[in-house]
Each structure stands twice: as structure tokens, then as C-alpha cells.
């Protein structure tokens, strides 16, 4: 079937280097010596550990419980003993440690009791929750919890469900092999997504350098009687970026500020569909994934590796050449060198590349930008990278936002083409993280300010309330005394004074209250230390006035609250 294709601007055509790792079928990697399973393997909340050191676990047993809706469960990749729940180095460029469950395999690889999910009788919400509990996340690299993407927009009709089999990054072939070998399960998994999202059509995009994979998926679609369209898209990096693939297949452009469902389209990776089906049909949570092991190795190949496998153990299977000096996780365009060789394979690990200068020559020194515009021509988001660079370099972050820095997907096309060898993406990451840091700081400062102001307000209020209470108590006391005195006086007085006596109690009570207030005010005056506002220089006075004005504007003044006490003293003064 002919499908009308659209194009995205920009993009580059680096040498693909994919043929090396597709000659052999996927192999199961042997059980490693230990497994380090990080709890935080998806976007969103960090799952809470539900096992502790010494626990026996079986393959597929829950070890980390999803924390919130955008979070996904984590499971034991094999049977064995939990050795520790501790901070471990992570496959992340920062080199920071994170909480992980360390498991020593017992070699039996015993599954839990696997029960297929009764999909036919489940509500869509049940299915989403089940996928969350099975740890199904986007395996294309972004690891967004899949169930969170399986709800259509309320206001926009779901037009297209896009399945991403483009795999545009050089060297990576894990999706290619998965499509070739396990097409039927992928297509069945897509069926689940289709049922939940109810799109008008389902489009499976595969770069045209993978004809075998496309043929396998086509055959599976036909065999299962589905109406999914398998579309070959031109090979051009980054055609496999979700936004680029959506553009190529539908002509829709999803801006950074919007969700794709707002435009009636959603996108999943083929491997994600596969794991969703394994979870539903076989009761197998995500405990392994296909990883391409390639680069400077003797025997490049795709392995099905357990999550948590130390990378060096997996890399060793492909026999790295002796001049290997590092491990890249991901592709050569967006991947990163892992901080230590034994960090674990995680759900985001689609590829390990043995790094050597022979394959990836060290970069020539950075030259000044000559504004040649090659980066702008290559940018798939049609940004002006050289302008972004200019402002990021000058730490003029406001300007970088004006030039849409947050629309940058860090695909690396600009760095790839730059004749001046400027690591543009690094500058953009720097600018983004600086902007985030500043926003965090600003938010923290705002919060602290609000907290402080509320504390002040509360203290003033409490003081006023206390004063009021005291005044009332004193007044009551005085009134009582006055009444007693009046009664005594009435008893003593001649019969000529009944009128006076009738008037007196109220007046006496008032007088007594005034006297009490005066006495209190005097006591306060005497007790009061010299205030720190008594000796102000004009500048301080001005500042104080300004603060008072702000406080008044903010409704924080104590004038109202303290009115009673003030009034009493004033009354007393006028009486004098």
C-alpha cells in the first residue's frame, strides 16, 4: 500500500554501521555473577523497595513498587538472594549513585507463578494498572511509563497510533532483530495499545534500511488479520525521534509545549509493544531487554540481557578489542560514556558500543563559530543552534529561551555537522540545566519568603490576641471589684443618695477599667526595653517605612488586631 509521506527539515546521514550486528540472531546472555537493579528506571517517581537484604526472590517478583501514577514497578530479573538494597553507580553521565537492589543469582532462574492477565474481561483502567505493575516502560530510550501514555485526549479524537520501528541511530539494531524474530508478539502488543487508545489508524514506521524487519512485521500483520499499515520511511537521522516519525507519517508537528495526544496522535516503540504483550499474555513483567553489543568488538551481536546485568559482563560476550577505552550506552549520536564499566544494563539500555579512538576519533579543538548555518540546516526542529550557542556561551539564558532552547531534542545533528567542532549540544544542556537550577532557586526563595512572612503574621496575631484576652480579663476583674465597692457604698450611704448609687456601678466599672488599662500601660512602658526602632538613622527609617507600606499592602499589618489595646490607652489619656 502506498502511504503519503511527509518530510521533516534538517537531519543528517551518518554512516549507519548496522550490518555488523545483524548477521547473527538474538542470543540469550548467560546469567551474570550479580545483578544490580536500580529502582529508578523510568521517568517519574522512584519506586519504593519492597525487599531487603537476605530476602530470597524469584524471577519476576516485585522488588520495587511504583510510586505514584507516573512511575512503574521493578522486578527481580532472576531468582536468587537480595544481597543489598543500597546506593550503586548508575549508567548516567553524572556518575551519581542511586538506590538499587543487588541480587546474587541462584542459577535456577525460577519464575514466579506466571498468570496471564484476563485482558478480555478487564476494564481499560485495569489494563493500564496491570502494565504499570508489570514495569512496562518506553524501551526506545525515553523510558516513560507506558500506561501513562495509553489514555486518549478527552477533547481531541485519536487519529493515529504510531509504532516506532525506525531505529535511526547508527550501530543500534536491537529493534531490527526484535522485529525480524518476534514480529507476531509485537503486532499483538500493538493490538492492546490500539484497543486502549481507539485510534482511526495504526501506522508502523520502519526506516527503509531494514527491509527484513518490515517484511516480517507485514507478514505478522497479515497473519493476525490486523489492518495496521507498515510504512517504510527514508533513512535519515533522526527519523526515529518520536516527533520526527509523527511528522513523517502524519504531517503533524508536535511542539515542545504540547502532548502528542492533543494532536490526536500517540507513539510507542516496537519493543514496548512486545513487552506489553509478554506481560499480558504470559504474565512476564519486564526483566530483560534486547541490547545491541557492538563497536570495537570482535563479535558484535544482539543479546537478550537481564536488567541489572553489569555492562562489562555483557560487553565481554562480544569480545572487545584490547584498545577499547570505554563503553557508550545508546547510539553514537545521543549516547554517553558510562562512568564505570560495571554499571548495570537498565530498561533504557538499547545498545552498548565499545569505544575506541579508531572508531570515534578524538575531536579536533573547538574553533570559533563562523555562523555558516550548517547547524540550522541540520536541525530537525528548525532552531538556530548558532544563536543558541552564542547566548548560552554568554550565559544569556533568557535569550536562549527566546530562541526556543527547550524545543531542542539534543539529537546531536548540529554538533555532527559543525565545521568549527563546537560541542553545541553540550552548550544547550548546560543552558537548560542552568535555567532549571535558577528556577528551582527562585521557587525556593519565593517559598522561604512566603514562609517567613506568614511566621511574622502569625506572631503578630498571637501577640494581639494575647493582649486582647488580657485586657478583657482585667476589665472583668475591675468591673467585679467596682460592683462590690458600689454595693458596699450603697449599703453605707444615706438614703439621700439612691440616684447616685443607681448610676454609680456602671461608672465605677468604667473608671476601674480605665484605671486598670492605665496601670497596665504604665507597667508596659516601664517594662519596655528601649526598642531597636528608637535609634534609627534616616535611611533605616525610610526602609522601615517601606517595609511597613508593603506589609500594609499585603494585609499583614497588626493595626486592626492591636486596636483594642491601643484604644484603651488612648481613652485613658483623654480621661486624664
Amino acid at each position, binding site marked *: 500500500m502506498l502511504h503519503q509521506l511527509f518530510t521533516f527539515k534538517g537531519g543528517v546521514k*551518518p*554512516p549507519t554501521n548496522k550490518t555488523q550486528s545483524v548477521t547473527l540472531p538474538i542470543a540469550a546472555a548467560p546469567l551474570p555473577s550479580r545483578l544490580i537493579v536500580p529502582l529508578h528506571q523510568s521517568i517519574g517517581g522512584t519506586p519504593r523497595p519492597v525487599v531487603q537484604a537476605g530476602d530470597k526472590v524469584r524471577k519476576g517478583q516485585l522488588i520495587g513498587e511504583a510510586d505514584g501514577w507516573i512511575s512503574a514497578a521493578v522486578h527481580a530479573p532472576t531468582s536468587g538472594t537480595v544481597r543489598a538494597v543500597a546506593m550503586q553507580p548508575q549508567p548516567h553521565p553524572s556518575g551519581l549513585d542511586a538506590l538499587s537492589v543487588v541480587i546474587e543469582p541462584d542459577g535456577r532462574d525460577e519464575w514466579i507463578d506466571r498468570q496471564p492477565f484476563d485482558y478480555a474481561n478487564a476494564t481499560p483502567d485495569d489494563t493500564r494498572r496491570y502494565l504499570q505493575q508489570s514495569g512496562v516502560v518506553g524501551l526506545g530510550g525515553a523510558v516513560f511509563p507506558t500506561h501513562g501514555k495509553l489514555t486518549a485526549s478527552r477533547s481531541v479524537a485519536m487519529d493515529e497510533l504510531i509504532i516506532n520501528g525506525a531505529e535511526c541511530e547508527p550501530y543500534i539494531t536491537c529493534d531490527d532483530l526484535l522485529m525480524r524474530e518476534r514480529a507476531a508478539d509485537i503486532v499483538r502488543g500493538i493490538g492492546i495499545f490500539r484497543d486502549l487508545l481507539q485510534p482511526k489508524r495504526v501506522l508502523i514506521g520502519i526506516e527503509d534500511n531494514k527491509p527484513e524487519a518490515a517484511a516480517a512485521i507485514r507478514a505478522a500483520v497479515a497473519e493476525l488479520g490486523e489492518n495496521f499499515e507498515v510504512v517504510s520511511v527514508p533513512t535519515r537521522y533522526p527519523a526515529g525521534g518520536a516527533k520526527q516519525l509523527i511528522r513523517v507519517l502524519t504531517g503533524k508537528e508536535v511542539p515542545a509545549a*504540547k502532548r502528542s495526544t492533543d494532536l490526536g496522535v500517540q507513539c510507542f516503540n516496537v519493543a514496548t509493544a512486545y513487552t506489553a504483550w509478554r506481560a499480558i499474555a504470559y504474565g512476564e513483567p519486564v526483566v530483560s531487554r534486547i541490547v545491541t553489543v557492538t563497536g570495537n568488538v570482535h563479535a558484535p551481536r544482539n543479546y537478550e540481557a537481564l536488567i541489572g546485568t553489569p555492562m562489562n559482563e555483557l560487553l565481554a560476550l562480544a569480545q572487545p578489542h584490547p584498545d577499547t577505552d570505554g563503553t557508550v550506552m545508546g547510539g553514537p549520536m545521543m549516547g554517553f560514556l558510562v562512568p564505570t564499566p560495571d554499571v548495570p544494563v537498565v530498561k533504557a539500555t538499547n545498545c552498548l558500543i565499545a569505544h575506541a579512538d579508531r572508531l570515534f576519533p578524538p575531536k579536533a579543538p573547538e*574553533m570559533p563559530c563562523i555562523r555558516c548555518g550548517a547547524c*540550522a540546516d541540520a536541525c530537525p526542529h528548525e532552531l*538556530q543552534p548558532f544563536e543558541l550557542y552564542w547566548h548560552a556561551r554568554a550565559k544569556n539564558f533568557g535569550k536562549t529561551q527566546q530562541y526556543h532552547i527547550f524545543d531542542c531534542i539534543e539529537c546531536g545533528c548540529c554538533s555532527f555537522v559543525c565545521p568549527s567542532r563546537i560541542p553545541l549540544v553540550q552548550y544547550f544542556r548546560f543552558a537548560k540545566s542552568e535555567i532549571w537550577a535558577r528556577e528551582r532557586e527562585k521557587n525556593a526563595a519565593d517559598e522561604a519568603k512566603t514562609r517567613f512572612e506568614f511566621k511574622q503574621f502569625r506572631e503578630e496575631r498571637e501577640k494581639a490576641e494575647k493582649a486582647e484576652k488580657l485586657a478583657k480579663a482585667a476589665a472583668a476583674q475591675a468591673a467585679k471589684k467596682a460592683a462590690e465597692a458600689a454595693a458596699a457604698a450603697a449599703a453605707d450611704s444615706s438614703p439621700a443618695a439612691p440616684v447616685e448609687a443607681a448610676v454609680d456601678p456602671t461608672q465605677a466599672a468604667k473608671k476601674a477599667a480605665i484605671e486598670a488599662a492605665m496601670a497596665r500601660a504604665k507597667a508596659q512602658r516601664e517594662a519596655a526595653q528601649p526598642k531597636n526602632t528608637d535609634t534609627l538613622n534616616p535611611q533605616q527609617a525610610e526602609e522601615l517605612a517601606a517595609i511597613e507600606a508593603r506589609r500594609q499592602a499585603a494585609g499583614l499589618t497588626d493595626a486592626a488586631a492591636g486596636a483594642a489595646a491601643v484604644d484603651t490607652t488612648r481613652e485613658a489619656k483623654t480621661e486624664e
Partner: protein
Amino acid sequence: MMTAPAPFLLKDASVSRVMTQVCLALIPGIAAYAWLVGPAVLIQLVIASLAALLAEAVMLRLRGKPLAMFLSDGSAVVTAWLIALTFPPLAPWWLVATGTVFAIVIAKHLYGGLGQNPFNPAMVAFATCIVSFPALMAQWPSVGLQMPLLDQIDIILGLAPRVDALSGATPLDAMKTALKLGDGEIDVAHLLANQDIYGNFAGRGWEFVAAGYLIGGLWLWQRRLISWHAPFAFIAAFVAISGALWLYHPATFANPLFHLLSGGTMLGAFFIVTDPVSGCTTPRGKLIFGAGAGLLAYIVRVFGGYPDGVAFAVLLMNLSAPVIDLLTQPRIFGMKDES
């Protein structure tokens, strides 16, 4: 530990490769030019290149920058070649050297060096010298001058008197002067009939030089080193204004073809207004920049007092480039519908 960031794969590209290709693209024009006015052009290329590299080295040293990396980037040589090709071929060596040193020291390094100059250095050199040394900058070899290489070198080095042979002018300048002297009595068609000067279209031999630059420029475009926007707009503006005035009064205004193939039009279109550092960078900005430069160049060339207007036009547009860029930012992916 290595911390080299992605991407690990890089396209085989460098600044020196860009500059080398620009130099290569100049060769057809240079060949035609040398055939037209003699090997003096090549001498000037050498003088300008040496002066540029020397000035570059001194400035890099003073600024504490790595010498080898920047001397080999080729940018100084491109500037030097553009100067040598715009100055009169038999200009004294010190004039070319002065212009080149001025371009490198003042127009380039004092503004921050490679990539930082707001003005096109070669055009700064041309403008400076034509204002400071108007007579020398207007001395072109007489038409059909045949002079042995050694004599040409003697003249350039000032070892021989500057002879009457240098009383010529470019066809463009000759046309303007003739029209001015004729004071309305002489018409363009009559002048163009003199094939000794004007050849078939725009100057004997000069047509081939222009064609050489055109070929080189098209090659740069085909190699994607330049985009079509600025050259197209520059040429279109030239054709539009010269065509309109020619239709209005053909006796006093030369036809568009004459303007396209004479003076610095073709060199300007493909090698000057395409300078990325001092020009515009957005597609629409490049169109505005090219069109503006074309219009101004025509106006200065036809109504102004200088033999050609490309240099002044480009400098004026250089001034406006940042604002044009700011106002012509393209819509980005996903934001095309927003107004």
C-alpha cells in the same frame, strides 16, 4: 575517565575545508582574470596572502591565541584573495598590503577575530583604500595591454614608473565617465558599440571573469556551502532596478546584462554577500540582505562617485544584518501555525 560528549560520530568538516573550497571556487574567475589582464593578478594574490598571514600571525600572537590552529584555518587567505581580486591588478604592492593588513588587523582581529567581525574585512579594505587612495584605486590597465610579466612586477613593486598604460578604467567606470562627459549627448547603445572596450555585453574579457565567478559560485551552491538566497536576491535586485531604469530611459541607463557582467556584481553575489560571518543567517534575512546589497550597489555604482558600489553596499547591509536576523527568525518545528 573520558568525558567526551555525544555525538561521537562527526561529519568530516572543518573551517579550513570550508575556506579551501571557497578558494577553489574562485579559481575559474581568477584564471579568466589572469588571462584578461596578465599574470600580475597572481602576483597580487601572493602579496595579499603573505600580508594577510603575517598580519594574522602578529595579531594572534598579541591576542595570545594558538598560531597554528588559526593560521591554517584559511580565513585570512580568503580575505586576501578577495582583496587582490578587487584591487586594480597593477596597484603598487604596498597598497594591496596596506588594505590587507587593515582588513586583518582592524576589521577582523580588533573585533574579536574569526567569526566575530561585523563587517566584511575585504570590503572594509576596499572602501578604506578607495577613499584614501582614489587615484591609485582607479588605475586599471589599458584595454588590450600586453606587458611582460617582469615589467608588471616592476610596476607593482614600484621599480618602474607607473606608465600611461595604466590610464585605463574598468568598463563600468569608463561607461559612467563617458556618460557624464557626454552630458546627455552620448547614448549607451553608441558606447556599447565600441567592442574594444565593452566586448559583446559588458566589457571585453570581463564577461569571462564574471562567468568564471558565476561557475565557482554555482559550484559552492551545489556543494551546499552557500544557499541560493543571498546571491539570488542580489542578482534579482540588480536586474530589477537596472531593468526598470533601462526600460525607462535606455539612452542613459545600461541594460541589466551589462550590470550583471561588469564590475564586482558576480564576485559580490557569490563570494561577498554570502559571507556568513558579516551577513544574515536566516533564509528570509539572506533574501533581504542580498536584495538590499544589490539595490545599494546599483545606486552607488550609477549615481555615486565611485567606480563600483558593491563594497559600500555590502558594508551598509552588514550594519543592518543583526536587526534583519532578529526580525526574520524562522518559525520552528511545531509552531508554524502560530501568528
